[in-house]
């Protein structure tokens, strides 16, 4: 690991590392580009695995513990792979007042997952977010990238059913 530290050569031949490398280069490999780089890694690979964190630590010359500390401070970053489909349920105030708890209960009853968990077959990840900025449409969710509003427990579960066919 010592010989690798500071190295900007990607850990594998996966071409996606080029995107990560380009992001770091754009910031001149400055240590302060850590969060920007982690965003790029997550966008590219879907989550932050240990190998990626070590590579970023080395290339940006940020201590390992600091990289891990930053990656776990921010809840937007996932350290585990996500399901094929993602349902982001808003738990912001407007959505809470308009019935999100019932939606979460319905999802848990149907799929056995709570926010932050993925179904055992790796199909669906349930994520909670603090306000999607669509409070006018509360209760709101983002299902595989699409914002959907004015949800009911039934409708939410029905929409998720489409993923399990």
């Amino acid at each position: 690991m010592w010989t690798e530290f500071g190295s900007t050569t990607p850990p594998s031949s996966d071409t996606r590392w080029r995107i990560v490398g380009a992001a770091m280069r754009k910031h001149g490999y400055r240590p302060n580009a850590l969060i920007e780089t982690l965003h790029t890694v997550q966008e590219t690979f879907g989550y932050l695995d240990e190998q990626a964190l070590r590579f970023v630590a080395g290339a940006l010359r940020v201590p390992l513990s600091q990289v891990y500390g930053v990656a776990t401070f921010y809840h937007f970053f996932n350290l585990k792979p996500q399901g094929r489909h993602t349902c982001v349920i808003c738990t912001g105030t407007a959505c809470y007042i308009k019935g999100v708890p019932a939606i979460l209960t319905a999802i848990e009853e149907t799929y056995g997952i709570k926010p932050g968990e993925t179904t055992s077959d790796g199909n669906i990840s349930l994520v909670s977010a603090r306000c999607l900025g669509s409070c006018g449409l509360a209760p709101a969710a983002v299902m595989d990238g699409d914002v959907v509003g004015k949800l009911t427990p039934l409708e939410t579960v029905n929409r998720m059913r489409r993923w399990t066919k």
Partner: protein
Amino acid sequence: MSTAPARVKTLKIDDRDVSGREEETILDVARQNRINIPTLCHVPGLSPVGSCRLCLVEIKGSPKLFPACVTLVREGMEVVTKSERLASYRKMILELLFSDGNHICAVCVSNGNCELQSLAQNLGIDSIRFPYRFPKLTVDASHQRFVVDHNRCILCARCVRVCGEVEGAHTWDLMGRGTSMRIISDMNEAWGDSETCTSCGKCVQLCPTGALVEKGKSVAEMSKKKGFLPYIVSMREGRR
């Protein structure tokens, strides 16, 4: 700043007239005058973080409280370090710390040598009013010479700072946030597997509680030597 500024400030701490240089904190000046202000996160020689909030003092004319460890002295300020209100806050803060870990002194190797314990004694705490939150945390004994017991960690980040700022290894940092915050070595690995740890032991010596200790000590045997830090720091600064 062309006109020479008055670099020495005169102020009052607990009704005593004292003076300090403008870059000194209330805590610095209080200590020079043997006025005791309780502290936990502050260690001379490490960057101040102002996180434990035990050193809060009152300044006359302001309803707010000020952390003495990071508040610079100002001309004419009147500082109050002891009041009923402050005493009650300090007690509650310590009680919160006790409620959030597993601090059973009777079985701790640091019993009798623990800053948390002695602060509690000085502030007259005999029982903890808040319910224990009982997080079940791990004990990592993988290091050859040291042990970390997360149940006794109060997250003051002294180890993190001494490791990064003085030893320069930056093996320690904090992960997570809020109630799930922990100290970690490297990538949250077993301490014994750390590639960056130099086993210098500075973190162990600076830990105020029994969270970081040397191996092989039994109850109340672990005493810590903190003198190394002022020594290193003053040697670096080339003074004295």
